[in-house]
């Protein structure tokens, strides 16, 4: 115990007396560990992000996709969907690209989501002000719209948009509501979207064929039942073959997304690990130089009664301490850099698990890449070590 303590002291002393060399050795490890933390953090940040947005939709929602332009699901036929036993509400929607401007200002591109009066509730969206699109708007093809928070600010800055008119493809629409700020979800930025009654989609030269529907089921415990009922309905009544549509629950989507996220994290972590190994080889290199440089010291220590294992321990502790210091600095650097990537708009999450793994792997690297040089030092014959100058 006493011996171990003293040997650790010797190791620290040697690291301190070779500051530049020690710092350069650690640099490799610092970069390695930091990149593991940053890349895995970005990977798992993206995963959580996706998971959150999927979960936002709720567990009682099914998504129906018609993924072929050859088959059509006409808007008028959707009422029958609602009449299915397990279906509570539906929100069909269409994405339309339009130009938007206000008064005489120049126009810019925007995404319009044409949908019905259930969309807000099903998507868990809330209004910051104004009213939602109502059933009456749908019936009357009212040229009304709801703005996402960001686009509302772009168009109106500080003035109240409610009751004001904006031009979509040159046509006047009245702003009836503004959404609360959401942040981006699943690639679409809800804050930048404009909602209009689905029946007004035809003003944009769109057919009234619907490709996407959110379906809210009556009881989330029977969501599987609802899923097969809907599939059955599409196949047997609408006569669309199964290769052209998909009905997915949020659960299955969540699973798929989580899989993708995990693969992403592993991939990024794998790439970063390569730099860790390179860092480890750096440690070995420095330790080998150190052993050669200190052959005389080893000889003197052996003449004074150091055993093989004392010398082995001394060099092993030295590379371990180097690696752990480098690893710790790397962890802090990684977290700091991760915070920076967050400022750049990427999401980042450093789990304590990844930090623990990083710390352990720097210890393991110190041991693995330190053991060979240390063993070489320990096996030097005292007389040979003493004779070198």
């Amino acid at each position, binding site marked *: 115990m*006493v*011996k171990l*303590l*003293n040997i650790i*002291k010797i190791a620290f*002393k*040697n690291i301190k*007396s070779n500051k530049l060399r020690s710092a350069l050795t650690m640099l490799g490890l610092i970069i390695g560990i930091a990149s593991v933390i940053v890349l895995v953090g970005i990977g798992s940040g993206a995963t959580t992000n996706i998971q959150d947005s999927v979960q936002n939709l709720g567990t009682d929602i099914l998504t129906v996709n018609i993924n072929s332009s050859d088959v059509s699901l006409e808007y008028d036929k959707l009422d029958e969907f609602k009449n299915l036993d397990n279906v509570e509400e539906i929100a069909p929607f269409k994405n339309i690209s339009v130009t938007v401007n206000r008064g005489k200002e120049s126009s810019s591109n925007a995404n319009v989501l044409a949908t019905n009066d259930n969309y807000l509730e099903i998507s868990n969206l809330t209004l910051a002000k104004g009213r939602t699109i109502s059933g009456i708007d749908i019936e009357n093809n009212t040229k009304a719209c709801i703005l996402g928070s960001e686009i509302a600010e772009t168009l109106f800055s500080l003035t109240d948009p409610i009751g004001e008119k904006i031009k979509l493809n040159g046509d006047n629409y009245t702003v009836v509501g503004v959404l609360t700020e959401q942040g981006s979800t699943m690639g679409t930025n809800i804050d930048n979207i404009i909602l209009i009654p689905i029946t007004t989609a035809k003003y944009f030269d769109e057919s009234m064929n619907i490709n996407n529907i959110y379906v809210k089921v009556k009881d989330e415990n029977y969501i599987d039942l609802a899923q097969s009922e809907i599939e059955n309905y599409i196949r047997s009544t609408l006569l669309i073959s199964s290769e052209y549509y998909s009905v997915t629950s949020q659960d299955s989507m969540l699973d798929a997304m989580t899989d993708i996220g995990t693969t992403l994290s592993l991939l990024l972590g794998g790439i970063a690990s390569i730099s860790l190994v390179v860092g480890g080889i750096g440690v070995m290199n420095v330790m080998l130089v150190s052993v050669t440089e200190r052959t*005389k*010291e080893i*000889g*003197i*220590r*052996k*003449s*004074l*009664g*150091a*055993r*093989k*294992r*004392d010398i082995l321990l001394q060099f092993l502790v030295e590379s371990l301490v180097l690696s752990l210091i480098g690893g710790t600095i790397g962890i802090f650097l990684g977290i700091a850099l991760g915070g920076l990537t967050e400022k750049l708009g990427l999401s980042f999450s450093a789990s304590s698990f990844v930090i623990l793994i990083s710390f352990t792997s720097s210890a393991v690297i110190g041991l693995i890449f330190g053991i060979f040089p240390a063993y070489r030092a320990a096996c030097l*014959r*005292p*007389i040979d070590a*003493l004779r070198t100058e």
Partner: protein
Amino acid sequence: MIKLLNLNKSFFMGDEEIKAIDNVNFEVKKGEYVSIIGPSGSGKSTLMNILGLLDVPDSGEYILDGVNTKDLTDGELAKLRNKKIGFVFQNFNLLSKLTAWENVQVPLIYQGISSKESKKIAFEYLEKVGLKGRENHLPKQLSGGQQQRVAIARALCCKPEIILADEPTGALDSKTGVEIIEMFKKLNEEGQTIILITHDNGIAQKAKKIVRISDGKLYDEEAIENG
């Protein structure tokens, strides 16, 4: 205490065999002060390295305190070096990054003595060799004679059975050399067994017994009458 029987050690330079130790028989008893004298290249250091368990003979027996060193493991040899042997080298062999007292402490650490206790012992022995006040000096801040004193303190601090000194004055001026030799004499009077290796006749004369070595062979031992 030390007994060498038919000891041989050769080195090979290419095809040529150099018999550094040639069938040596030799005995040192407790409390003796023996000097081994011989010209450069005669095998003195080789003999000392074998006596100090730093090197092993090709053949023959080396019995230290009744133990045949042939049968010992690396670990046991290290332990004997630590406990029974104190080295004093011509070039001091101090660790340059450690202070005087830390150098003295090294063998104590390998004995497992605590930092505090070993520091105390180190200070004690530095005082004994006349270096009180120099404990925190690095070797390069000390003169040659002072460095050799640190080395002597380091050799003494584990209370070795035997001090092995290989030309301890070789790197010192004659005045400092004499001081070191006086110190050995005093240590011997206190009962310390010493083997001193030198090529200097004057220094050899200070010992109680002289053994000559030439081309690896040991010759006639002569007892010296001095004071």
